[in-house]
């Protein structure tokens, strides 16, 4: 792959949106100077393709090629992005070819996968990309037939003039249309006319996936490329004292062993050989920071929860007075451990640092940041660095960091050769960037009518920043409220993990609310609805969630699960707002031979318009499985700064038999999409814990649940 010429700015156009938002959208139109985009494991554009804009080209044979700029990690963006373009284009989906675009900051914005933000961010610009190309095709047909554009219709990649019964395919019109000026404004479809959006469309990479084609970073191969593994310090808070690599260097297939920063890289001809030689390294480490263990953290949390020094995140009313007046006070604590992301494809990246530029290829959720950090590290201008995206074998937030890209780039610059750095599972598990361990203390003050008049939350976490979400429910619904947090700085590195913070906070909050509702002698669903009504009628402070959207998912979940109406089924409720979307869940537990068994989870989701029903359905089910598995089993502990669990034999991930039935319902209220990559995960732990409580009278306070044999001795989830 060559370094791409920098795109000229000559045809940059800004389109003002319709009166609504005044948002400015940038596109590069008719830009063929950039040449064919580089992609991995997919066909590329041919010279005959007429490029209409950054996203789409049409070939004379009618094949519409749509570029998907954002990293695909299983959230199905590579299918749903092009669907949005094809919808407005009125393209025949069976003739759409989708390509993964390389990083291109000239053509695309926010080539990021994270924060459930891709669709919300790009929704309008993708629609405009399709609509303006359609408009150009209409104009080409109008010119050809000497008719007006409003006498024409489009459907399935064909323009029709009904009056004269003339038809032309997009392929036939593409060359002509490509020469026309880009319309300054375009009319978007009325949402009720959507044909493709809302359908269940299969993953565009299905064939490649089921036939084992090279799609992932780990599959990338280049003639002459070397393989490398890196030995990093096993314990956080240590650094290299000395390295003896003589034995490793002498092993078959080893080309070099190089030490940089705290890394010892073994470079050679195959993954197996470098990994074997790595075991022959003799490295001594010395202390370079605190050496922390899980029991230290447990103690520390207790101290911090009582500390007078905390950062206040939100304060409404007079919380001390409310607690003094209370007839009932409930205080509960909840704790979670560190978690590795453990995407099934471990970290890896290919780098080739040459005199004339740098080539990077691999799986990244943030390619632009990875490129910019590489530029800084190597002192090379960013324009001299290309970054091609492969498919990502999962991400869960881990690939938002660029550490593994930088390592590959630095190593390539040292050895002056193309190299792919591969992390073994053990490297991935012990390499940091974890979901932070956190402990919460919640307190509620109830008056004699069972109304919550005071609410306190203290969050303490390890490298967790603000581990609260101070404006989330029930803020706004309680007159006297105090939310604060304390962060402990540790050498154990942390990072964003799918639904950062809320992946555990939601469980703690929803389990606590359940307990408060019981103490108030109210139905747990009615209790939540009552709080929402109060936030609507007499809000306290700012209300930063949409009360009506939250109520709607609560009611939908209650209705679909027949809340409270099923004999012998113990139900648990949970609802959460995160990343702009709302999801409510009802978990159902039955007693089988004296044991509580999780049988089903009902989910009601409001993510606005559902783009691809198949992908969306799986996002919710997958998010629930993820939330359930980590609530029950995920546990990464530390001894002397080193992770105790290093692979899947000691770190349990959820498997087939642990998975209950899941039923998914969408509100589909017609509002612009609000994101779905994360929001289904946070509510699961709470719904499940509350259902186990309903069945057994015992509560889970800490994750993983399966470690709390005292709380619920028969805890097991199995499929009936």
């Amino acid at each position, binding site marked *: 792959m060559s370094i791409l010429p920098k795109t000229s700015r000559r045809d940059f156009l800004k389109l003002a949106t319709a009166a609504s938002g005044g948002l400015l959208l940038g596109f590069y139109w008719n830009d063929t100077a950039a040449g064919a985009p580089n992609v991995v494991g997919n066909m590329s554009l041919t010279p005959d393709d007429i490029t209409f804009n950054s996203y789409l080209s049409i070939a004379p044979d009618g094949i519409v090629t749509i570029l998907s700029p954002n990293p695909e990690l299983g959230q199905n963006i590579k299918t749903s992005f092009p669907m949005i373009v094809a919808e407005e284009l009125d393209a025949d989906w069976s003739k759409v070819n989708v390509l993964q675009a390389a990083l291109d900051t000239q053509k695309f914005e926010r080539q990021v996968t994270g924060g459930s933000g891709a669709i919300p961010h790009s929704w309008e610009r993708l629609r405009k990309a399709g609509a303006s190309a359609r408009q150009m095709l209409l104009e080409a047909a109008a010119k050809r037939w000497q008719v007006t554009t409003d006498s024409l219709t489009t459907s399935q990649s064909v323009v029709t003039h009904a009056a004269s019964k003339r038809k032309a395919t997009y392929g036939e019109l593409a060359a002509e249309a490509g020469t026309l000026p880009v319309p300054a404004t375009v009319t978007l479809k009325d949402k009720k006319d959507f044909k493709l959006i809302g359908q269940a469309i299969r993953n565009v990479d299905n064939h490649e996936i089921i036939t084992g084609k090279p799609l992932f970073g780990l599959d990338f191969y280049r003639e002459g490329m070397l393989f490398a593994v890196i030995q990093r310090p096993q314990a956080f808070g240590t650094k290299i004292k000395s390295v003896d690599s003589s034995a490793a260097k002498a092993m078959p297939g080893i080309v070099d062993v190089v030490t940089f920063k705290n890394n010892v890289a073994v470079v050679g001809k*195959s993954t197996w050989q470098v990994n074997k030689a790595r075991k022959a390294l003799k490295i001594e480490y010395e202390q370079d920071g605190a050496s922390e263990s899980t029991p230290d953290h447990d103690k520390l949390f207790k101290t911090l929860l009582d500390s007078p020094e905390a950062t206040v995140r939100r304060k409404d009313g007079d919380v001390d007075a409310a607690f003094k007046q209370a007839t009932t006070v409930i205080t509960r604590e909840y704790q979670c451990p560190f978690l590795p992301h453990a995407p099934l494809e471990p970290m890896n990246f290919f780098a080739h640092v040459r005199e004339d530029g740098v080539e990077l290829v691999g799986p990244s959720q943030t390619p632009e940041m990875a490129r910019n950090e590489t530029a800084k590290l190597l002192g090379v201008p960013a324009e001299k660095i290309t970054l091609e995206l492969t498919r990502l074998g999962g991400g869960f937030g881990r690939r938002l960091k660029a550490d593994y890209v930088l390592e590959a780039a630095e190593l390539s610059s040292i050895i002056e050769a193309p190299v792919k750095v591969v992390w073994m599972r053990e490297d991935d598990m012990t390499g940091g960037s974890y979901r932070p361990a956190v402990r919460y203390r919640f307190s509620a003050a109830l008056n004699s009518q069972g109304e919550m008049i005071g609410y306190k939350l203290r969050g303490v976490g390890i490298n967790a920043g603000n581990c609260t979400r101070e404006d989330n429910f029930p803020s706004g619904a309680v007159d006297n409220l105090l939310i604060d947090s304390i962060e402990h700085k540790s050498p154990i590195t942390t990072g964003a993990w799918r639904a950062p913070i809320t992946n555990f906070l939601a469980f703690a909050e929803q389990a606590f609310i359940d307990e408060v509702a019981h103490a108030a002698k109210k139905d747990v669903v009615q209790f939540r609805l009552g709080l929402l009504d109060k936030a609507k009628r007499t809000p306290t402070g700012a209300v930063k969630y949409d009360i009506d959207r939250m109520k709607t998912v609560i009611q939908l979940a209650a209705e679909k699960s027949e809340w409270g109406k099923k004999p012998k089924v113990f139900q648990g409720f949970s609802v959460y707002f995160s990343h702009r979307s709302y999801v409510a869940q009802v978990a159902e537990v039955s007693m089988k031979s004296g044991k509580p068994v999780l049988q089903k989870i009902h989910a009601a989701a409001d993510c606005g318009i559902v783009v691809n029903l198949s992908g969306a359905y799986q996002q919710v*089910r997958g998010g629930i499985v993820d939330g359930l598995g980590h609530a029950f089993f995920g546990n990464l502990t530390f001894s002397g700064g080193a992770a105790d669990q290093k692979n899947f034999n000691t770190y349990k991930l959820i498997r087939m038999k642990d998975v209950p039935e899941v039923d998914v319902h969408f509100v589909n209220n017609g509002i612009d999409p609000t994101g779905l990559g994360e929001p289904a995960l946070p509510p699961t732990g709470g719904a499940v814990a509350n259902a186990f409580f309903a069945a057994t009278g015992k509560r889970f306070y800490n994750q993983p649940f399966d470690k709390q044999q005292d709380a619920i001795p028969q805890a097991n989830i199995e499929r009936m």
Partner: protein
Amino acid sequence: MAQYTLNINGKSYQADVDADTPLLWVLRDTLGLVGTKYGCGIAQCGACTVHLNDNAARSCTLPVSAVRNGKIVTIEGLSEKGDHPVQTAWNEIDVAQCGYCQAGQIMSAAAFLTKNPKPTAEQIDTAMQGNICRCGTYHRIREAVTLAASKLKS
């Protein structure tokens, strides 16, 4: 290093590798058959599943020297056009999220259905218990194995 002749997907391949090299890395690094995936290297996740003499095998812990004349089938050779009933079912049910585990899932399911063409729901769960899907596509895997079984019957 030693020379091994391997029978993979009905073809004969030569590989000059160390005797202890797991079949997984011979497939991936030496022969360029990268459809078989690495997930754990310790027979825990199933991403590396291939067929050895029609049985599902974890190629990450199978030394190449132990393969001998064994008949190996990888995801690339499960069918010529990607239309093995298990593959077709995987497409129809739209199983994959990230897709990384799916070659291993498909190979496990295909070997299982050859031995048990009329499985119960419990037998499917047991058969697929050794394959991790970090994305959580388990519901669809269940559905797809069930669909594949019905395709094999007809």
